[in-house]
Structure formats: C-alpha cells, structure tokens
C-alpha cells in the first residue's frame, strides 16, 4: 500500500509533525511503514530517519505500509498528514 503527498507546510516536515508520524507508525506493531523521498527510503518508526529526508515545501513524499494492518496504518498516517497541514494528496 502506498500514497504520495506533496509537502505544503512552509517549514517542510519539522519536528512536531515528524513526531506525530512516528508515533502513529509505531502504534501498528505488525506493520512496517516507510517514507520514501528523493530516492531514499527510511523506516517511519525512526524520527531521525524521517528528519534525515530533509523534506521541504514542494517536495513529494511517498508513505508505504506493508503487513497485516497496512490499510489502517496508511489511513491513519494520511490523517496525520492532512490534519497537521503538512501535505496534500498527490494524484
């Protein structure tokens, strides 16, 4: 499962939303979650990994989930992206 977003927050992915993403991903124990951007793929369960992507406004970010709760996990992560005003769905 995966969905791609375009970052709209002027500050890019900063600590607060990154924290929210990591906390959400960590809730789904049996599901792997990844963030992919600029040709780099990191686990979404690591805040340092997410911040290391250096995402800025205008960048695109793909969230990937794999495992038993991949549907639920992806929809929860999407909610964080939208609620935090971080990004919009990129069709």
């Amino acid at each position, binding site marked *: 499962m995966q969905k791609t977003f375009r970052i709209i927050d002027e500050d890019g992915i900063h600590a*607060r939303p990154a924290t929210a993403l990591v906390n959400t991903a960590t809730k789904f124990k049996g599901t792997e979650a990844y963030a992919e951007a600029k040709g780099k793929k990191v686990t979404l369960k*690591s805040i*340092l990994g997410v911040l290391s992507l250096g995402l800025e406004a205008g960048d695109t970010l793909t969230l990937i989930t794999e495992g038993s709760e991949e549907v639920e996990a992806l929809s929860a992560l999407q909610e964080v992206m939208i609620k935090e005003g971080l990004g919009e769905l990129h069709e």
Partner: protein
Amino acid sequence: MNKISGIAASAGIAVARAFILEHPDYTITKTAVQDAEAEVAKLNDALAKSKAELQVIKERTLAELGEKKAEIFESHLLILDDPELINPVADKIREESVNADYALNEVAGQFIEMFENMKSAYLQERAADMRDVTKRVLNHLLGIHYVSPAEISEEVIVIALDLTPSDTAQLNRKFVKGFTTNIGGRTSHSAIMARSLEIPAVVGTKDILSRVKSGDLIIVDGLNGDVLINPSEAEVAEYTKMQEAYDLQIAEWKKLRDEPTVSADGKHVELAANIGTPNDVNGVIENGGEGVGLYRTEFLYMGRDKLPSEEIQYNAYRTVIENMKGKPVVVRTLDIGGDKELPYLDLPKEMNPFLGFRAIRLCLDRQDIFRTQLRALLRASAHGDLRIMFPMIATLGEFRAARDLLLEEKEKLRGEGHEVSDSIQLGIMVEIPSTAVLADQFAKEVDFFSIGTNDLIQYTMAADRMNERVSYLYQPYNPAILRLIKIVIDAAHAEGKWTGMCGEMAGDSTAIPLLLGLGLDEFSMSATSILPARSQISKLSAADMKELAAKALQMGTAEEVAALVHSINA
C-alpha cells in the same frame, strides 16, 4: 562585605535564590571493554533514566508553558527510542568492544553532522536537539549531575562564569529572575541577550562564583551594577522599594511607546535599536523603536560549523525587514575576524586582533563570503526599507571596492530575475579616526554614517577596552571623541546626508544631551534604552544643548564634560 560591584548590563532589580550554572566536561576517551553486554546494559540503563527525566520535564513544561514548548521534549523522547540511533550504538559496542559513551558519541556525531549539512535552516537547527539529547544520556553514562537552564523550574538568579548563546536562548523568563556572570562587559553577548529578554543582569562580577553557593539569597541590581549575597531583611526591603519605583518609572515610559521623539523645542530625532537576531525585533516594537539602527549579522555566522548559505541569510534578513513593517533597517555586513573568531574559517591568531584582519578587510579578501551576504541582503531589500552599512572602513578605496561588489551582485540578481529595491541607502560605520577626519570626502559618496563609538574610542585613545589596566582610557566624553563626532555630523549635513550612532554611547543618559547638541540624527541603542531616552530628550531643549555641546568641545577632560552635563540636571 556582602556586596559585589560589577557592570550594570540590564536594568531592573531581582531578588531570588542563587542557581549556579556550571558546564560539565564532556571529554570522551575510547576504552576497550571486556564485557560488551555489561556496557550495552549500561547504555540501556542511561537511556531509561534519560527518558524518565524527559518525561517529567515534558509534563512540567506542558503544564507551565503550554503544548508548543513541550513539543521539543516529545521529539527528544522519540530520539531516545529511535532504533536508527540505539541499534547502531549497541552494535558498535558489541563489534568493537568499546565503552558506551564513546559509541554513543560517535553515532550521535554522525546524525549531528547530517543535520548540520542540511539545506533547510530549520533542519540545521535540529543538530542542537541531537546535541542536547546526547548530553543528557552522557550525563548518566559519565555520572555527571547537570541541570540545563531550560530545566529551571523555580524562581532563581542564575550565576555563571559566563553564559553561552545557547544557555541564554534557553533561559525562561518566568523562572530566571536575573543573572550575574564573572566575566563579560556591557557589550558581551550575555549582556545584550539580557537586555533583549529584559532580565536584570550584572556582569563582570569577577569572583562571585566562588563566593556564592546554590540556594543563597541574591539581589541583582541591574540599575547600579551591584549584587548582594544573603542580604539582610532591611536590604531586601530597600531594594524591593527601589524595584517598585523602577516599575512606576517603566509604566511612565511605556506611555511614550507610539510617540515620536521630539525635544522640548521641537527638534525631531530618530531612536532605533541594535539587534542581533530576528527574534529581537519583538523587543524593538514593544519598546517603540523607530527602526533598527544596527543589525549585527555575526550571530548568523557564529555557533555553527560552516558558513550560512544565501538562503539562510535571506530568510533572516527578510524576517527582520518584514517585521519592521516599512521602518528602516540598517544591516551591518559581516564584522568578524581578529578577536571574534569563526572556527571554520581557520584564521591565523594575530598579535593585535583589533588592528588586524577583520570586518570589511576580511570581506574584501574573502569575496566568496561577502558576495553571498550581499546577494542575500539585496534579495531581502525587496521587502522593505533596507539600508546596508560596511564596518571598519578606513579608506575611501575600501568603501568604493565594497560598493562596486554590491553593484555587481545587484546586476547579476536582476539578470536572474530577482526583485531588488532601487532605493537601498548605503553607508559606512565610522570607527576609525582616519575616516572621521576625512568625513567630508566620504560624505560625497555615502548615503549615511553610523558612528561606532566602542571602536572609535578605542582607536582614538589607543587603548584596548577589554584590558582592565587601560580601560580608564575608554572615555566617551573625552573632548577628542566629541570633536571627531562633530566633524562627522557636520560633514554629513553639509552634503544633505544623515548621521547615526550605534555604539553604547547613543543610549547613555550623560551622552544624549551632548549628542543632541552636536546634531546627531539617529540614536541606535538597546531596545530597552529607547523609552528612557525618548523621555529624556522630550525634556531637553536642542538649542540649549547646542550651546552645551559647544562648551564641552572647548573643555580639556572627560571629567569636566561629565560635570558640565550633570550640572544641567542639578
């Protein structure tokens, strides 16, 4: 004696218990360990203790300062749980049989470096978070007991040898009622920060650290520059009264916030503020500043490991200019070198740093650095009234060379499609006697002068103001200094240009009558000095002060001049 005299660095009076702030030694050595598993266990234990600590800090911050301030600790907690950090440290301990503190420091160091090399200024600053978190765990591994300024949660007076920029940035005004440092002067970083935070401070109290222990009752009198250790009840009462009188005075001053600065006989001058970071703009506006008279850009270059990019600089300049909403902002280009070091520039140590390779001299030589700053400034000029000034100009040739580089970059930027203002005023700082003496020639080519009195006095009197044995020669009211100031102001006016002053002298109540009398157009000072200065000027007659200044120019000593000025208040 329970009273220590220092330098009054930030006005106001505070009474609270002492909090001694000392920086631990984080020297880490690589050691071979026999039992790697025991070392991993030590790491896990230190991580658990750090997390427990952070949890407490986070909850307290949440309750006292709100969600936004607590978020930072939430992300610190996540870092301590981060498999990308913890697993490599444990692996390193096991694979190399090394001590946990060494392994942690190495792995964390890689992350710190990664953040520092990021394009976004925001992410670059995350390196500081990583450092904080690492130190917290190291405290447990190395058995260091350290409480950072951010963790202070009761009303205290902070007492330290000196305060670093990161310490002062963490001071919480709610709990830190005042501070005092062994070293430092009125212009040291911590003093400047204290004024922008509006915390009473006394600096240069020499041996105070050795005379105070945590928990002692302390009075910091930032009005007179005194610190009292374990004062009597009568002394506490006396100072509390002084504080009340000062609060009343402040309330009076605040009424002048949105008023223009006009003398009793109707002469207008402008009162602007000196700032060091974009955050300082709030203080300028709250204190009724009519502009920024000196934006010191050094802080953008300090406290990091490489030169700030054009983008980082542009964002900082633009923020200041936008927040000043059309009021003038005078930005000083990079004033570094000599005694103000930038480790990453690797400049050789000098015998006489104040007479050496610094400021505009360095910028004209290192054009890569200078052009980046000029580009950032020019781009920011599209957002308001930007004025640029070059520091330490000694010859007309230097000014022309700097101006030509600016014009070249302006053309290039326009070629690239950037918007650049057409009306950027270009000025110089007058800090070197040769420039003051030749001001009539400079005045034909510059748009304004800004007199930097700290250096001008030092160079005119040939005395290092930091050297205690000759600091008596730091004499702002010496007639020699006043005559140089007069030459500069008169030369500017003859060409229809304006003169400002951005040294400490501009906010000094003894100097203000003289400067008004000499015809100074703009006074730039610490934001908190603006309202007292406006109040003072409103009571002075510019015509009378002109006579006063004329008398002062004919005097022989600084003491005579000071006595003359004080006689008008008597």
